[in-house]
């Protein structure tokens, strides 16, 4: 530093500071990119079909599966540490036969490996993947096809029929049978209502008889439909594939229970890409199977988006009105300052506290009261007196309302006083001024608050666990049965799905990539929702700021 003037030293310091700030930003960006890259690498790789490897061990045992993981060993060291051989983890599937999906193999123990083109992978509705070789196609005692190639030729045709059949069964179950169940439930509740109301005996008899007649008709309808359903199910399970595992065990698999039949080693890159896309689509559009370890996550996506939507509906009016009062009407002073500090601090309260409050206030108090007043016939089964998507949305609305208040207040403060005076000077009242001039001008700020609230709500898990989120919801909160939007229903959520699949699953090894994929999807959904809101905000900004002229 000798020979430098003070000015040069100051400048050098300035350069160093600039580099420090730039470096901090770069580090942040790098972390984000790294996180997204990690999620994408592990998550997206899951859907790519790897080749099937047939392995023969030194002891003569044969295995077939996908190489899932490799682990480098370590040579013997000077301190007398034993050498550790390289290992591979093979996904061998066939959970119904072997009990576990994965085995670890030490490289020195492998005598031979090959990629037989005829090796098949059967994705099944139950028990996960089957790896093996096709032998026969049977309908009971009747042999439909024998030999590897013949079965592979016949299987797709039969499988397509079965998929159509499965679709019909699904429609029957969710359509007519669902409606009859709904009707029977309504009739059961009607019976309870009659008992609760305790009308005069004659009246009571008459109404009960009516209900009984309806119920009998419904039961009769149900019996007919059930017969059809059972026939379809028998039909679905009639043909079986007889397949052989690598170890030579014969296994019967109903064609109707197969999701996909593949010969990965015979597939070209194009086929694999098609398979990849079809698996991604299945992931985002199907219901989960096998306690969430397979299938899709559509109900979780649906639940997350709907919950965030309901939350926005609740939080925006609440937050905007509160901010309007604080900024426009309340006399600015110590009290308002204290309220403002309290509101800001509310944002820092641990979210589980809101969850507990939501459970105590919304679920037990409000929900319990609603049940007593409007759904007495369903008690002791709670309707609103238990966790549900409405209570979850309202709980999160409380959690995120400070964000909306703060952002709205900033938006309101940014509206120049002279614009308000311009409105008042034309004879507008304060309310008209706020409603027609101030609020529209503050709309971008309000939307900023909504964006932040949505991002926070979509990622929140802890409070939801006690106010209505479940591992597996039997039905979506919106369906074809009246009143169509079922606010009292429990719902699935991506954040909880990540936790459940990753840490509560019976098959953690198999579901690890699903955690990454689900996390990536959650980020993607939050991003999309935010982009929509940002586009809306920019539209408003353009509309009001005049930059589009």
């Amino acid at each position, binding site marked *: 530093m000798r020979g430098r003037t003070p000015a040069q030293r100051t400048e050098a310091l300035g350069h160093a500071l600039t580099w420090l700030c730039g470096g901090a930003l770069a580090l942040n960006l790098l972390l984000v990119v790294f996180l997204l890259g990690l999620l994408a690498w592990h998550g997206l790789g899951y859907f790519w079909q790897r080749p099937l490897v047939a392995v023969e061990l030194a002891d003569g045992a044969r295995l077939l599966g996908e190489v899932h993981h490799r682990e480098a060993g370590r040579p013997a060291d000077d301190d007398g540490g034993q050498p550790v051989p390289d290992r591979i983890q093979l996904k061998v599937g066939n959970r119904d036969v072997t009990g576990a999906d994965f085995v670890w193999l030490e490289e020195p123990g492998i005598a031979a490996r090959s990629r037989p083109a005829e090796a098949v992978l059967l994705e099944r509705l139950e028990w996960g993947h089957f790896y093996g070789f096709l032998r026969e196609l049977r309908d009971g005692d009747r042999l439909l096809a024998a030999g590897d190639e013949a079965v592979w030729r016949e299987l797709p045709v039969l499988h397509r029929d079965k998929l159509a059949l499965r679709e019909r069964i699904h429609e029957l179950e969710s359509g007519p049978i669902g409606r009859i169940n709904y009707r029977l439930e309504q009739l059961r509740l009607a019976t309870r209502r009659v008992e609760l109301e305790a009308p005069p005996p004659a009246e009571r008899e008459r109404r009960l008889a009516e209900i009984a007649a309806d119920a009998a008709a419904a039961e009769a309808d149900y019996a007919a439909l059930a017969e059809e359903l059972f026939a379809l199910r028998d039909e679905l399970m009639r043909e079986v594939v007889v397949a052989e595992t690598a170890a030579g065990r014969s296994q019967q698999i109903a064609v109707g229970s197969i999701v996909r039949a593949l010969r990965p080693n015979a597939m070209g890159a194009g086929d694999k890409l098609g398979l990849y896309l079809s698996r991604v689509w299945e992931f985002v559009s199907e219901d989960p199977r096998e306690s969430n370890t397979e299938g899709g996550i559509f109900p979780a996506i649906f639940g997350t988006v709907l919950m965030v939507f309901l939350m926005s509906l609740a939080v925006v009016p609440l937050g905007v009105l509160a901010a309007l009062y604080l900024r426009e009407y309340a*006399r600015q002073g110590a009290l308002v300052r204290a309220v403002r500090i309290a509101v800001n601090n509310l944002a820092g309260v641990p979210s589980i506290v809101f969850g507990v409050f939501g459970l105590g206030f919304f679920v037990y108090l409000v929900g319990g009261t609603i049940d007593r007043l409007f759904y007495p016939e369903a008690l002791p089964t709670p309707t609103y007196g238990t966790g549900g998507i409405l209570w979850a949305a309202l709980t999160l609305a409380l959690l995120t309302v400070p964000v909306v208040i703060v952002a709205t207040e900033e938006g309101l403060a940014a509206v*120049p006083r*002279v*614009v308000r*005076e*311009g*409105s*008042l*000077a*034309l*004879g*507008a*009242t304060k309310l*008209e001024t706020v409603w*027609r*001039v101030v609020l*529209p*001008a503050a709309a971008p700020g309000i939307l900023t608050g909504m964006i932040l609230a949505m991002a926070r709500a979509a990622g929140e898990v802890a409070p939801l666990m006690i106010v209505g989120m479940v591992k597996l919801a039997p039905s979506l909160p919106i369906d074809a049965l009246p009143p169509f939007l079922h606010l009292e229903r429990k719902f699935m959520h991506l954040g909880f799905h990540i936790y459940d699949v990753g840490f509560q699953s019976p098959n953690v090894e198999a579901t690890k990539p699903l955690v990454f994929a689900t996390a990536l999807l959650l980020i993607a959904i939050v991003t999309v929702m935010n982009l929509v809101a940002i586009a809306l905000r920019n539209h408003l900004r*353009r*509309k*009001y*700021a*005049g*930059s*589009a*002229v």
Partner: protein
Amino acid sequence: METTQTLDPPAAGAAPAAERDPAITPKISDPVLEILGLSLWYGDTQALDDITLEVPAKRITAFIGPSGCGKSTLLRCVNRLNDLIDSVRITGDIRFEDGSIYDPAIDINALRKRIGMVFQKSNPFPKSIYENVAYGLRIQGIKKRSVLDEAVEKSLRSAALWDEVKDRLNESALGMSGGQQQRLCIARAIAVEPEVILFDEPCSALDPRATAKIEELMLDLKERYTQVIVTHNMQQASRISDYTAFLYLGRLIEYGETEQLFIRPQKKQTEDYITGRFG
């Protein structure tokens, strides 16, 4: 809001004009506004001290004076915009067509419809040009499209803006130039058909050409409206106003016909100010 007003007997116009200082009591035949002994405090600071003056109808009256002399404050008393400031206290009275505007029974919004205002900084609403002009009518509950269309066109024509904006009425007003925005604000004020228009340094943020247009416009509007302008541009006051009031440190120093005041000021302070010796 702790506005208090008292009718102060000596200033209530009871005294004949002849008995009072001729420097601040020009002969005005048909006053529309009478400011009577008006004093105003912001908290403990007095901003206006016993101002009494009459504003003639269908003329342009200018308030001049150095920054902080209270001329804008006085103007804002006329449409009671000072009411918005919590700490303001007012004594004295302003009479507008024989009624007190500080009468507790008065409808302040109706008053503001009759006394329009154009601000120092142009303040179009974040709405389209059309909606800006229609705003005052819409809050009066007028919804009929034909009525609004007609009023918007008439007001924009009066403000010499129609030809420039008739093809982009639905675009944001914030995309206009500063001078256009200010003329839009005038059109917006005209649209509600006020009797008086108050101008609070309307040209202070405009270039000379835009300023000239506004001045021209004010002269055009003279036949129909009583106009009061606050300005710290003395040339502007001399160019357009008929009467000029000089305020200094919250007091009315001199008030008279503009020509008289600029050519033969009666007070030393006025002369010092208009010759540029201070201010």
